């Protein structure tokens, strides 16, 4: 007996039933290319509009030299400065940066708690949440270095002004992430604590704190990581940290010193980032 293994021609393959369904679906594919074309056109138009601001006057005559100097400075930094343990050394400035970021984050994290509770829609009536939201938006209005300048009036130049600046500028983001955590609270736990006869303090201790703690701590650690970078910027306005030595070294064209400061900053941020990620992953997994 001959089995009917008939080879299909190409035309028959297309017309065979399963393939027909596929081909029909393909033909009815939504025509997204129009949307893609419009989107591309809009992006190109915006790019064309914004190119006006780019006054590319070519690389500055000595720009290449400076770029090369910074690069060699990064590869071969000023080791004596990088390993100098006195007040002029980079380890001390890095410690100062860490301290500014720590205190700033700490104060910001505490100030954000009441703000977050009055802006969470499950804690206060819907009509009052706008107040907290408005305060947070108002705080976020000013760029960090404007706060830096304002606080220097209060404390004089130095790391203290940096602490206050970071404290204020951290509130916005921390409060926002707190609010999300608070709005996720499971209120049934509070009801069951009520039923077992707990008073308010016990309800906060056993019902609310365990639910919020991991989220809050994770938020604060994340913000600390960001604040390390922000603290290094504040030095540019005279509010302590690693920014000030950097700008001095750059304006004096001492590239090996610049290299040493940048290497120190990179190592510091990488270490903090590593621990921050490790702790936050651990917190998220419980």
């Amino acid at each position, binding site marked *: 007996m001959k089995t009917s293994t008939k080879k299909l021609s190409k035309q028959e393959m297309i017309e065979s039933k399963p393939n027909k369904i596929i081909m029909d679906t393909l033909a009815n594919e939504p025509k997204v290319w129009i949307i893609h074309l419009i989107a591309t056109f809009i992006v190109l138009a915006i790019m064309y509009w914004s190119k006006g601001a*780019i006054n*590319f*006057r070519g*690389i*500055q005559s000595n720009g290449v030299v400076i770029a090369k100097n910074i690069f060699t400075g990064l590869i071969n930094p000023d080791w004596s400065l990088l390993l100098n343990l006195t007040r002029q050394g980079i380890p001390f400035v890095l410690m100062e940066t860490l301290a500014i970021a720590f205190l700033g984050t700490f104060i910001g994290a505490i100030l954000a708690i009441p703000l977050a509770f009055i802006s969470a829609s499950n804690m206060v009536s819907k009509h009052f949440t706008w107040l907290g939201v408005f305060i947070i938006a108002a705080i976020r209005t000013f760029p960090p270095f*404007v706060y830096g300048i*304002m606080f220097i009036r209060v*404390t004089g130049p130095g790391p203290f002004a940096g602490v206050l600046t970071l404290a204020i500028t951290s509130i916005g983001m921390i409060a926002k992430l707190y609010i999300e955590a608070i709005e996720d609270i499971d209120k049934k736990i509070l009801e069951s604590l009520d039923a077992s006869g707990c008073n308010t303090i016990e309800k906060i201790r056993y019902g609310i704190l365990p639910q919020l703690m991991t989220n809050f701590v994770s938020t604060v650690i994340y913000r600390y990581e960001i604040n390390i*970078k922000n603290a290094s910027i504040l030095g540019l306005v005279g509010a302590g940290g690693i*920014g000030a030595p950097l700008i001095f070294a750059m304006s004096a064209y001492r590239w090996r010193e610049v290299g040493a400061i940048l290497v120190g900053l990179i190592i510091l941020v990488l270490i903090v980032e590593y621990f921050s990620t490790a702790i936050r992953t651990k917190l998220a997994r419980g």
Partner: protein
Amino acid sequence: MMNILKNIFQPVLSIFIPNDIKLSNGKVVKPPKPITPYIVIALIIVTYFSVELTGFKFSTIIQRGNQFLVILRRMYPPDWAFMPRVWKPLFDTIKMSVLGSIIGCALAIPFAIVSSTNINSSKITLNITRVFLSIVRTMPTLIIALIATYIFDIGTFAGTVAITIFTFGIVSKMLYEQIETVDMEPFVAMEALGANKIQAFASAIVPQVLPSYLSISLYNFEINVRNAAILGYVGAGGLGLILDEQFGWRAYDRAGVILFTLFITVVVIESISRYLRERLA
């Protein structure tokens, strides 16, 4: 005597090593060792040293805290006549962030693909690009801008370069995290059908990550508008430049106008971007 000492120390000690709990059926349960008291002690020590190192004083805040409001008060009433001179730097800022965001997001794509564990199986290239990206990310925008002004001269171009580099670093990371969470089965299916890696990537991975990629890009654009506004402080063009000038001259009423304009711009751009991102989600 020993008993008194024990009575004092027992409660303190029980914070660190909790007492065993004896149940009614005679079973003894050991409570888990708490770590909170150790963390609290560490926090107190770190806070103490930070206070020492930064010269933090509550008394200064209480005595001179009102100085903080002096500048704020002088910003009112704003000098609206200054408005015409704000427009150009404002648009410069927006243009810098637009161009920087677009170029940075485009540059991020190849690097994100190479740093995704599910696409790139070569450990060496993966780790090299990842380390490179983390080093790029450690640099604060203002410091990149500072370096850029030395290389490209003062002006908006340096600012655009700074924003491009910053966007590149952050978008690459967010994008490879997205690529790593996609469903790989369509990719495998495409390869089984005979597509090569690029074809399989284009038709199986791209549709999955495109919405989140656009959303990430828009989110970055939002951040960049805020960032671009301060870059002028180191001479990289935009609003920061005139803001720094006005602060330098103590013309706070004019600085108020600039800050107000910046606030409105940021709010408008954030709401547009948020609307678009909600549509994408």
